């Protein structure tokens, strides 16, 4: 019974997605940084940071306020989210609209760890590219969670 219901829901979802793709208007999503993202997380290695010499103060003066911080201050996280573009298929009907699509996002995250004296002890730079799904109906919508959290070590 449960399996039959699940199959029905999946079938309806697939049908809705197929209808949107076939009947909807494709709207391209332009490339660019997400509105809430910072833009000063470099892709190349940070040659101005020297483990054992650069301080927390130096890092903050160069990169600004961090996106995240360890509760004990032992690391700072800097991250960015850059959309490489995508497409949303939108279906207008009866004064309302529904849409579904996908967007490719590049996440960058830099974790700078410090020792007890506030001197850099490690640098961990991660970059991840992923496709994210977008669905919306009327005034509500949802986006799949980011494949990399930029404000924490998770």
């Amino acid at each position, binding site marked *: 019974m449960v399996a039959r219901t699940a199959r029905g829901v999946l079938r309806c979802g697939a049908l809705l997605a197929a209808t949107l793709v076939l009947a909807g208007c494709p709207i391209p999503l332009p490339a660019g940084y997400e509105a*809430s*993202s910072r833009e000063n997380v470099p892709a190349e290695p940070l040659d101005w940071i020297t483990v054992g010499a650069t301080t927390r103060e130096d890092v903050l003066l*160069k990169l*600004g*306020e961090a996106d995240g911080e360890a509760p004990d201050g032992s690391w700072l996280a800097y991250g960015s989210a850059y959309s490489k573009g995508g497409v949303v298929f939108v279906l207008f009907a009866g004064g309302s609209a529904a849409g579904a699509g996908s967007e490719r996002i590049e996440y960058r995250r830099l974790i700078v760890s410090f020792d007890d004296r506030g001197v850099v002890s490690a640098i961990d730079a991660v970059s991840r590219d992923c496709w994210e799904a977008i669905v919306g109906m009327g005034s509500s919508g949802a986006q799949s969670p980011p494949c990399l959290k930029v404000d924490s070590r998770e």
Partner: protein
Amino acid sequence: MGGEVTGLPRRASALILVLLGACASTPFGQPDLLTFIQDDQTTREQVFLALGEPSATYENGRILTFRLARDEGGYFLVEKAPGFRSVKYSLVLAFDDEGLLRRHSLVAIKAP
């Protein structure tokens, strides 16, 4: 009479001017918001009095940051919210143990 401007068009023009004037935005920015900041001179107290609560603090409050944006009028403070929406600059102020500003920088966190 030819060329005479009647009362109605004049009133309509005045109304249009008022409506168009309402569209013009007043800049938020202040040209002198950050001019008081001087290394080895500015105190923590002066910073709090001029800029209010910082958006973040580090090393037990020794380092303060403020979120800023800029328009035609100059820099203005941006309220703290998740992420950096509308934030263009991060002002970082590092004080010594006596509360005197030692180093500062205005970091552009978004492309101009």
